Structure formats: structure tokens, C-alpha cells
């Protein structure tokens, strides 16, 4: 397959906001994206400073995907995240303090500080969890959609997954069942061109990723994953279809992971020029330029929002660092439910 996304061919810069209104305003999107960015920059600092244990994968560069999709979701809608999942947690309304607490291994984290980056669950906001198993959350989201359908709750579910999942059998199985049962679920592939150190093109057959959706007659779209407004518009269409009982959708979002596979990745296999080209299309800057051009906001307003995001994140991180760690008494807690 020739599916590694290219910054040159993506369509975004021409995109304006007109004709596409989502649930959240562009300024709200800007706020969410800058929050995620600040969050991830902070995580990176904390990790390199030795404060965050375990395996951490950063979402920087992909902010538009989680932000655009979650901007059209209700609190009762559910999402399945993956190993690069902080962005989804934030975008779905996660509490910054609890998120930092979890990453830092503090008892006040979402999972008592026992889960860490790859195991963050936020039931209050319908987050079915980040996961360490590539493809592992796809059936979780599809299954949540099964409940929504059978129980007629009116909610929808979203499965976020990387391009690496495009070759996991369980994705195909879940798509097939979503299609035959007309489940209210969005399959959102975040195609950043790599799974660990391997290019999508080397391991993914076919002419077009969209053909994987077509195999199940699932409405499928390519979306510019660096353009949050495009993401929001596509997600809105898909969510509306799902709520109307018209079944699943598949969004294929081209994007880029700025910081490589994991936080300590040296990225020898990625050409610098390429990353530079992607950074030109940075989702945050792009939205800013578009808003300023359309006179929907001034640069000063945007800078103020970004500054607020950074401040909120910094305060949460700071507060989280002071929280206590779990103790031996917490080891066995919640092994079984009552």
C-alpha cells in the first residue's frame, strides 16, 4: 500500500470554517488542542525528568483528531482509546489533575496510580480506556455500541486506533459485526504512517485503506487529520448517521506523531525534512491562521487561550506531583467487584 500520509497532498490549508459548524466552537477546539499540546509537553518534561514510570507514547501532532471527533460527542457517548491516548482522555473531558496523577503514579489518579499512561479509564466521561494492546479497544468500543443499540440509549461510541491496527484481525471482525448490526460506532483510524519503527506501506496491503471499510460497506472517508475543522465536520456527519440508526462509519485521518513511537524514541527512521513539513501543517497553528484569516479571532485572543491552557496544565501537573503514592494496602484493591 502507498498510504503513508504526506503533508504535501493533504488538502487543508484552503479549508475555512464556513459551512461546517460542529458542536464545539472553533475557539473551544483551539482551547482543547492547546491543552493537549501543553499536556503532552509537560508529560515529556516530567518523563525525561524521571517522574513518570513505564511506557509513554505522546499525542503531539495528532491533536486535531481527538479534538475534532470528541467535539461532537456528548458526555454519555463513549470512546475507546489506545496506547497513544492522552489526547483522547483530555478531549473527552478528562480531569487534568487526575490524568497527571495517574501518569505520575499517584493514588488520586484515575486508576489509583496503578494503571499509568496505557491504562487510563474515565467512566464519568465515557472513556473506555487507553490500552496497551494494539487493537485491544476496538471491540470494546464496538461492544459499547452494541449496548447502545440493544438498549436504545441514543448514544454513540468511537473507536480510535492507529494505522497499525489495520492489520489486526479483530478490527475486521468488529467492523463486520458493526456493519451487520448497524451499530452506532465510528471507527477512527489515526494514520501517522508508522507502527513503531515500521512504515505502513511495508506491512499494509491494498490500494487504499478505505477499501477495508468498503469490504463491509461501511461509509468511509479520508479526512485531513491535521485540520480540526475537517475532523469535526466528518465526525459530525458520522455521528449524525449513527444517531439516526444508520450504522457505523470509518474515518481515515492522515496525521503525524511528532515525537516518534515512544517518548525516548530517537526516530532515526524518520526523515527530518518530513517531520518539518508536517510541522508546517501543525493543527494548532493551522487553526489559528484560519481563524485569524477569517477574522473569527485575533492572534491576541488565541494567544490568551493558549496561555490559559498552559497555565491550567501547569497547575494540574504541579498539584499532581504533590499527591501521595499508593501504598501496599492499595495493591489488592478492586481485584473483584462486589
Amino acid at each position, binding site marked *: 500500500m502507498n498510504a503513508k500520509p504526506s503533508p504535501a497532498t493533504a488538502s487543508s490549508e484552503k479549508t475555512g470554517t464556513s459551512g461546517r459548524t460542529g458542536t464545539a466552537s472553533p475557539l473551544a477546539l483551539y482551547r482543547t488542542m492547546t491543552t493537549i499540546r501543553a499536556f503532552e509537553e509537560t508529560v515529556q518534561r516530567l518523563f525525561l525528568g524521571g517522574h513518570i514510570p513505564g511506557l509513554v507514547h505522546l499525542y503531539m501532532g495528532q491533536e486535531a483528531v481527538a479534538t475534532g471527533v470528541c467535539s461532537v460527542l456528548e458526555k454519555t457517548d*463513549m470512546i*475507546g482509546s489506545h496506547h497513544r491516548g492522552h489526547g483522547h482522555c483530555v478531549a473527552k473531558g478528562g480531569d487534568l489533575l487526575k490524568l497527571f496523577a495517574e501518569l505520575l503514579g499517584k493514588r488520586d489518579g*484515575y*486508576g*489509583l496510580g*496503578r*494503571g499509568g499512561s496505557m*491504562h487510563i*479509564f*474515565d*467512566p*464519568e466521561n465515557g472513556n*473506555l*480506556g487507553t*490500552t*496497551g*494492546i494494539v487493537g*485491544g479497544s*476496538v*471491540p*470494546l*468500543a*464496538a*461492544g*459499547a*455500541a*452494541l*449496548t*447502545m443499540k*440493544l*438498549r436504545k*440509549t441514543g448514544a454513540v*461510541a468511537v473507536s480510535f486506533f492507529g494505522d497499525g491496527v489495520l492489520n489486526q*484481525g*479483530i478490527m475486521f*471482525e*468488529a467492523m*463486520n*459485526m458493526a456493519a*451487520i*448490526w448497524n451499530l452506532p460506532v465510528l471507527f477512527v483510524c489515526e494514520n501517522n504512517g508508522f507502527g513503531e519503527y515500521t512504515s505502513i506501506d511495508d506491512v499494509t496491503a491494498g490500494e487504499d485503506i478505505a477499501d477495508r471499510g468498503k469490504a463491509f460497506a461501511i461509509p468511509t472517508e479520508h479526512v485531513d487529520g491535521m485540520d480540526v475543522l475537517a475532523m469535526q465536520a466528518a465526525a459530525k456527519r458520522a455521528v449524525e448517521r449513527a444517531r439516526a440508526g444508520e450504522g457505523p462509519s470509518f474515518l481515515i485521518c492522515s496525521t503525524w506523531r511528532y515525537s516518534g513511537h515512544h517518548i525516548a524514541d530517537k526516530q532515526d527512521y524518520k526523515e527530518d525534512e518530513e517531520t518539518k513539513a508536517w510541522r508546517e501543517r501543525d493543527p494548532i497553528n493551522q487553526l489559528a491562521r484560519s481563524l485569524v484569516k477569517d477574522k473569527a479571532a485575533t492572534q491576541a485572543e488565541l494567544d490568551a487561550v493558549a496561555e490559559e491552557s498552559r497555565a491550567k496544565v501547569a497547575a494540574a501537573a504541579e498539584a499532581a506531583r504533590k499527591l501521595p503514592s499508593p501504598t501496599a494496602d492499595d495493591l489488592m*484493591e*478492586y*481485584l*473483584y*467487584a*462486589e
Partner: protein
Amino acid sequence: MPSDRQPGFKELTVKDAILEALFEEMARDDRVCIIGEDVGVAGGVFGQTKGLFEKFGVDRVVDTPISEPAIFGMTVGAAMAGLRPVVEIMFGDFITLVMDQLVNQAAKIHYMSAGGYTVPLVLRTAVGVGGNLGPQHSQSFHAWAAHVPGLKVVMPQSAADAKGMMKAAIRDNNPVVFIEDRTTYNVKGPVPDGDVTVPLGKANVVREGRDVTIVAVSRMVQIALKAAGILAADGIEAEVVDPRTIMPLDRETILASVRKTSRALVLDAGHMDYGVTGEIASLISEHAFDYLDAPVMRLAAPQVPIPCNAALEPLVVPNEQQIVGKIRAMLNA
């Protein structure tokens, strides 16, 4: 077994007892759904879901494609979102296909989410050696499931337990692996009328005796009882303990029995090595050490694939003669 109340009883097969539990629980709680291959219109390949589709309809009884990994994975997500699914994996051999979602998701989500989510589902599956179904339709990996923190593993053998424990499993807020030995499906027994549950995690002394304890899992209980009958003719009184739930295991009931009898034989229909018998035997050997008059012995399926052959298949199921032989040896030791 019914405890305080004294309801009437009726004779049911194990299979029908479980089916009755499903009918009752589905009527009681509309979040309970049945999901699996050919469980709906066809009523199950063993007739084990017969009539549910007709009674509860397509939104409660879901026929699936042949996609075990995602079928099971989706019931995990469905349970997190509020359903209480009973998902069927047709043969125990096929749970090999769902271990990732069972172990890496279902078993730990309650733990990882610090109680934020519960995963109330029942994975039911048919195991058992009989009818020459061969190496890929006769295995039972209950030892695997019991090894995984966060799962409960239930193995009823009587009709009453099968019904009562299925009801308890459905009401349990944890993922419960419910293992049905299909060679018991047509075994009849008295089942109390009404809404009687049998608690998970409680063993049952199905026969009292003073000379030796036989800890027997699932179908092996029935074979142990036959052996006990043979031994009784010689004046040897075996106590037969049915753990019923292997995880969590009711250690106290087992140990209390062995402390009384001073001898123990552990029986399981799964493979011997690194299986259920090793765990239970080692528990007894450690915690009843000072009471033991003979080494704790074990009988289980030998370490070989289950042959599809009428002459060989019986060789992989521990039988009453082997049990009697082991116990005689123990008593002579």
C-alpha cells in the same frame, strides 16, 4: 443446594437447568442478553439456548458471525456500557481464541479502572471428553482461566448447582468463566423450584466419609461418587468434596475435610501437568501437612492430545477403577 427455605424440587438435566436459569434471569433483568454462534434461531448446537430467541427476541438473543475474538471483546465493551451479557464460546477449545480479550481486558478492567468500570459478563463454554469429538473439540483450559487474577471460574456438575450458579454468575459483577462439561448435560438431578442461587466460591461436600478425601472437579465428582460406592463395599468411606468454583477456591472446606480424613486424592478432567490438580494438591500438602498419613495423590487427563478414537478416548478420562486403585494404595501406605 437449597438452604433455609424448603421449596419443591423437580428433576432436570444439567442442560435444562442452565437453560431455566437463563430464562429466569433474562426475565428478571432485561440487561441480560445471550450472544454467540447459533445461539438464537438454531437454539444452540446442543439445544442449550432453545426457546430463548422465541421468547426474548432478536435484541436479547444475538446470533453472531464466526468471529470469536471480537465476539468476546465486544461483550466486554458491552458489559462496560451496561449490558450483562452471557456470551457463548461453543467449545472450550475455542476459548484459545479469546484469551487476549479475556486476560488483558475483561479480567483487569475493574482493577485498572480502580472500580470505575465493572465487567459483568458470563463466558459459558462446553468442554468434556466423550463422543470422540477429537483433539480440537475435547479440551478444557479451566486451569488457564483460574491462573488469571480477576476472573471467577465456575464448574458445576449437578443440575441444581448448574442452575443456581448460572444465576449467581449472571448476577455477579465480575467476568465469570462458566465451564459446562457436556458429558454432564443429560445427567438429571433434583433442582429446587423458585429463585434459588448457589453462591460462587463455596465448595460442597457431596458425600461424607472418614477415610479419605476426594477433591473432584466438575464431571469428576460423578466418577468419584461411583468410586466411593465401590470402596464403601470394602468398608472404606470416602468423603467427596466438589469445589464447584475453582477461582476463588474454597480452601477451608477442602482443608477441613483433609484434616479429618488425613488422606487426599485430587481429580480433574483437564490435563495433569500444570493444571488444577497441582494447585489443589500443593495447597493440601502445605496446609494440612501435619495431618497427612499419605502423600496427596492426583488423577487427571494424561499429557496427550485427546484422540478421536473409541478405543483410546476412554484412556484419557480418569475412571473409578483408577480412583479405587490410588485410594487402596494410599490406605496401604
